[in-house]
């Protein structure tokens, strides 16, 4: 075989570090350069801003805690969007599923708080999963059995979830002693342990659900690439006809993948409601579901990529708030612009520099014969 490969004259292969490190880095730099220009226009110092951003995201223990806390949410939603993608589905509904997950967690922590914490935690996890999955089930069922386009139904379900959450908070679980649309505070035995409870670090919202998110990432990898169920999901996602010929039911897998997706999104409720807020409130989904789409796509639907993309967005959220804090002319809108530019360059324009970088690499790298593997 050696002989044949050499004869076919393989051109130089682009090594992994160029693909997975250099090019993304160049994209990120481009995004920052453009953001810097905008910052310059508003009349501030871009280099200073970059310093603040990085310092704010990673510069001190508290910052890291916050960054990882945001990362946790993005891992959940990124994985959620990714599993649906693997089945060829576009789940725009992670936001609504997260809201439902939070409701599930909230109901457990409000009404079953007599139970010991070692029962509450698994129960809350189950509730988040069940509520999130149930919310994803309906669009999935309609897609699988009735052919209703999942993009629309999940968009609609986001709106409906918001109404449901508001209804519950305004009419049902509202704290009778309070005046705002939030539930009463959960009792302390229902809370998820914080990192600062058992590690020497300052108080941050970072809690056990981060570990849980990492474990799920591993589970995600295992499910998608190492099991026959993941295999089936991927076959359905790539070629439905081939799936049917292979005896794989598209409907079943669509529903399965979406329910897993909904459950994953629902875990945002664990981090937010049980981990940090300790009460059911409005807006806790904070757009994580939408950004999850970018996280999944930038992470190429792979848990490692998703982790890195989630970390990037976690850092942007945390570093961004530091920016808004520290720099007078940078307000929250400016931070949104920077986030958008990063999604644009690292996500949508990710191939912009690729050909040039590859060509440059080919020119610089020494030509060596390709040996057979």
């Amino acid at each position, binding site marked *: 075989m050696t002989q044949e490969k050499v004869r076919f004259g393989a051109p130089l292969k682009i090594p992994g570090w160029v693909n997975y490190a250099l090019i993304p880095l160049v994209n990120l730099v481009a995004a920052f350069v453009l953001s810097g220009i905008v910052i310059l226009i508003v009349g501030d110092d871009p280099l200073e801003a970059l310093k603040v951003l990085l310092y704010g995201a990673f510069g001190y223990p508290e910052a890291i805690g*916050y960054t990882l*806390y*945001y990362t946790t949410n993005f891992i959940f939603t990124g994985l959620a969007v990714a599993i649906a993608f693997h089945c060829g589905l576009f789940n725009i509904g992670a936001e609504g599923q997260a809201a439902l997950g939070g409701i599930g967690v909230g109901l457990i922590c409000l009404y079953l708080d007599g139970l010991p914490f070692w029962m509450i935690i698994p129960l809350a996890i189950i509730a988040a999963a069940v509520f999130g999955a149930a919310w994803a089930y309906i669009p999935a069922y309609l897609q699988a059995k009735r052919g209703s386009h999942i993009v629309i139904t999940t968009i609609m379900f986001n*709106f409906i979830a*918001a*109404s449901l*959450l*508001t*209804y519950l908070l*305004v009419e049902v679980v*509202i704290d009778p002693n*309070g*005046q*705002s*649309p*939030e539930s009463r*505070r959960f009792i302390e035995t229902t809370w998820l342990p914080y990192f600062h409870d058992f590690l020497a670090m300052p108080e941050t*919202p970072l809690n056990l659900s981060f570990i849980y998110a990492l474990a799920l990432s591993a589970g995600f990898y295992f499910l998608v690439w190492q099991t026959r169920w993941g295999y089936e999901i991927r076959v359905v996602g790539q070629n439905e006809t081939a799936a049917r010929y292979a005896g794989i039911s598209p409907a079943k897998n669509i529903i399965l993948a979406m329910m897993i997706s909904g459950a994953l999104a629902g875990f945002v409720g664990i981090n*937010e409601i049980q981990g*940090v*807020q300790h*009460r059911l*409130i*409005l*807006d*806790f989904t*904070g757009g994580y579901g939408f950004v999850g789409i970018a996280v999944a796509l930038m992470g190429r639907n792979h848990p490692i990529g998703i982790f890195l993309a989630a970390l990037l967005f976690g850092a942007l*959220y945390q570093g961004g*708030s530091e920016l*808004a*804090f520290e720099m007078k002319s940078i*307000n*929250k809108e400016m*931070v949104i612009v920077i986030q958008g530019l990063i999604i644009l360059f690292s996500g949508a324009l990710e191939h912009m520099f690729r050909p040039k970088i590859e060509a440059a690499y080919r020119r610089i790298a020494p030509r060596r014969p390709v040996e057979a593997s």
Partner: protein
Amino acid sequence: ADFNPAIVFDMGGKFDKSFNEAAYNGIEKFKKETGIDYMEFEVTQVSQREQATQRMAKKGADIVIAMGFAQAAAVEKAAKANPDTKFTLIDMVVDLPNVQSIVFREEQGSFLVGVAAAMASKSGKVGFIGGMDIPLIRKFALGYKEGVLYANPKAEVIENMTGTTPAAWNDPTKGSELAKSQFDRGADVVFAAAGGTGLGVLQTAADEKKLAIGVDSNQDYLHPGTMLTSMLKRVDVAVYNALMSAKDGTWKPGIQVLGLKEDGVGFSVDEWNKGVLTDDMIAAMEKAKADIIEGKIKVTNYMDQ
């Protein structure tokens, strides 16, 4: 120059056309008068509330103004952790020795503009348009409705909420449609308590030559001639006063309830609504105001129901 104030705006941001903006105006006024700069932060994620308040305290703020009911939990935590920092919380109560809680009797102010609305209405139908459907807005609605019925027991109040997500605060076209639908149903005065959405309501009233009532700050200047009045909620004054008192050492913790009596809420009379808001109306409103202060009229607080 050692005085170091800070403010944390809630979601919606300091330019929300509503009460965050009023607070911004208050602190800007303070800055202009005293030359003292301040730290500020606009919350965009729920978890930032706590982070921001804590941070202000850590960075050596003498007083942290926290805007909005949603900040209560964050203030409670930060106040416990930073007993030497003063906190002023607007729109919600936290009972701690270093927290000053300021709440407004929005229902009283709404009652008064309800009286004016009922009197200005020829059709006997008036409208209310709220932003996001939360208890605070229902508080406005209830007070308004009671005021309308007080002035004209036969009147009808058409109530609409814009939506159930925060987008409901920034949807002027929806506000405009809601206003149109209320006008179509016969209303000829409309009260908008809906942030940016309200701008659409006021605009539509101007377009359709109907009357509108603004909210929080004085919005009469927007459409002179069709603005009946504005229900004033003096967040700006409260913020300004809190800062001033903290600066000169007279700041006191505890609950401040700002109602008609304290001039914390009220209505606007100015050159823009001259002639629209008639003397009869002003007189009736003044009388109702006096009665409320004296306790002759009881306005229901939605939160107490």
